């Protein structure tokens, strides 16, 4: 999984039927020091996350489909939790 921040929402009318009712969020993966890492991705939201929240992202199809509650959905990323705190023991 990866830590990411929700940076926006995506609206799509014409999409695969397994996305019906799903919330599509733009998420920016983060480094452990909260700096952005790579390009923003789209993820389905399984937990009711909002813009600016720090979330846990799963980047694997089967897991993302389960988070969406849709077996066989053509998804590869899902938000599976809203992060309260991250502690690095150094």
């Amino acid at each position, binding site marked *: 999984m990866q830590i990411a921040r929700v940076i*926006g*929402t995506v*609206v799509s009318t014409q999409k*695969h039927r397994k996305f019906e009712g799903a919330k599509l969020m*733009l998420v920016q993966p983060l480094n452990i020091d909260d700096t952005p890492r790579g*390009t923003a991705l789209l993820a389905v939201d399984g937990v009711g996350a909002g813009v600016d929240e720090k979330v846990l992202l799963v980047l694997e199809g089967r897991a993302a*489909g389960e988070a969406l509650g849709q077996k066989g959905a053509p998804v590869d990323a899902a938000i599976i939790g809203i992060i309260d705190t991250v502690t690095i023991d150094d």
Partner: protein
Amino acid sequence: MQLARVIGDVVMTRKDENLVGIKLLIVQPLTADRQAAGRPIVAVDSVGAGVGEEVFFVRGKEASFPFHPAEPPVDAGIVGIVDHWDLG
């Protein structure tokens, strides 16, 4: 999934039999501010996307799911046409 713009298409006559009837498009992945992000790739289309449209695509085996029960040997597929996105 990733945002992208459709910039072209690919036509093949001789191909894997599970690709027959499937449209192949070239997509340029985009950042949230519409800059090109990396190289264009070829993706199958299951939503009727066309050149110039902004779409989102899925990577991996899941790209073949819209064609179930066929299992085309693909690793990227357009699964939605984007109306718009809003940055918080």
